[in-house]
């Protein structure tokens, strides 16, 4: 576990020094809001019904940007082979990168949530804790597969194209579950009413993280 932690420590340190990813994602989140406004029009009542979908669309788009860059620091510093050559179980590197990505995604999602309440007067009311559960479960699934596919496409020529093309279809069920669950939660329904969606998300988290940990060695081999 110390090895996974040191990977997170390194990524956070590099991020704090270079501040590339977080600034870019914050700016991108802001841009998304403008684009949604311009493309869907200012009329709030009409948008109310689609807010859960819009929220998760914003999460997915900024996620694609953020997750796609998981191994950029390795590639730019030419450290990919260094990771491969350090002896010991490679899944610690996956867990470290996954934790870093999860943190990054949750920060961006928090920012987006604030922006949504501001721009779309999304009234969270008492629903915040329930919403946090849904967002948490959904983001773990998204980050788990995203980190694995980021490693896979990091070495490939057309990685910007291949990453979303591979990730989005796999995320379709998670997206269905999270939007449906968010919709119910925002309508004030108790978590119990979406228990089946939450069970699906939990199952997806377990499956994706397990597959990620087991197959990461083969992907890192590059």
């Amino acid at each position, binding site marked *: 576990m110390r090895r996974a932690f040191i990977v997170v420590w390194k990524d956070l340190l590099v991020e704090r020094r270079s501040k590339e990813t977080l600034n870019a994602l914050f700016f991108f989140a802001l841009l998304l809001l403008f684009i949604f406004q311009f493309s869907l029009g200012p009329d709030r009542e009409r948008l109310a019904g689609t807010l859960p979908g819009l929220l998760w669309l914003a999460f997915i788009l900024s996620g694609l940007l953020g997750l796609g860059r998981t191994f950029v620091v390795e590639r730019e510093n030419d450290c990919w082979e260094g990771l491969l050559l350090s002896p010991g179980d490679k899944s610690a590197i996956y867990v470290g990168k996954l934790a870093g990505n999860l943190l990054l995604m949750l920060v961006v999602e928090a920012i987006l949530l604030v922006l949504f309440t501001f721009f779309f007067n999304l009234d969270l009311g008492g629903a915040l804790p329930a919403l946090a559960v849904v967002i948490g479960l959904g983001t773990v699934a998204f980050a788990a*597969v995203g980190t*694995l596919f980021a490693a*896979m496409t990091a*070495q*490939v*020529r*057309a990685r910007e194209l*291949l990453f979303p*093309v*591979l990730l989005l*279809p*796999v995320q*379709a*069920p*998670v997206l*269905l*579950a999270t939007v*449906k669950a968010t919709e119910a939660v925002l309508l004030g329904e108790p978590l119990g009413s979406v228990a*089946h*969606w939450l069970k*699906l998300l939990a*199952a*997806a988290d377990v*499956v*994706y993280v397990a*597959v990620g940990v087991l*197959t990461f060695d*083969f*992907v890192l*081999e*590059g």
Partner: protein
Amino acid sequence: MTRLVGGVTLAALAAGLVMGFGIAPREATQGNVQRIMYLHVPSVWVAYLAFAVVLVASIAYLIRRAEAADRLAHASAEVGVLFTGLTIATGSIWGKPTWGTWWTWDARLTSVAILFVMYLGYLLLRGMIEDRERGARFAAVLGIVAAFNIPLVHFSVYWWRTLHQPPSLMKPGPGTMPGIIVTALLVNFVAFSLLYVYFVARRARLLRREAEAAG
């Protein structure tokens, strides 16, 4: 050897056609358009069979690095995508007269469409990586992730759709259908499975020859 399988497949396909058009009765409510089911349902079953083979072959490749397992996964994925595409095409042709539109977000059509896109990504990944060994390894990982994803797709799509309308008539629950139709379905399923085996065998052999030619 494959010539023999080819011959048997042709015979089985012919038998399937005879069952589908000759013996099976004209379906009461839908009329003859229902006969598309003898094409649509077996091809979706074979598609799932193909993706199950991709899963097993991918795991085998990662464990033993046997080139043959990789070629089997590749061939089976490609034939699987072929049958998935066929399922979607025949499903939408069926949809036109029965629901009046070429495409409806019906539970089964949607999940098959997601599989189609997912495994198309698999073929795209293989095409994009020049180094054969790395491509095989990444494809194996994707083959495993995609296969584990299938049940999630199924549940999410069913819950997503069935809250509004019951699963479509195309649900192949054999229980609710008269025996003769079920046998017609099974004959066609056997025929399609043989076709799958034939295609995979030839595609895998083609891959082996290409690998040998590349030396």
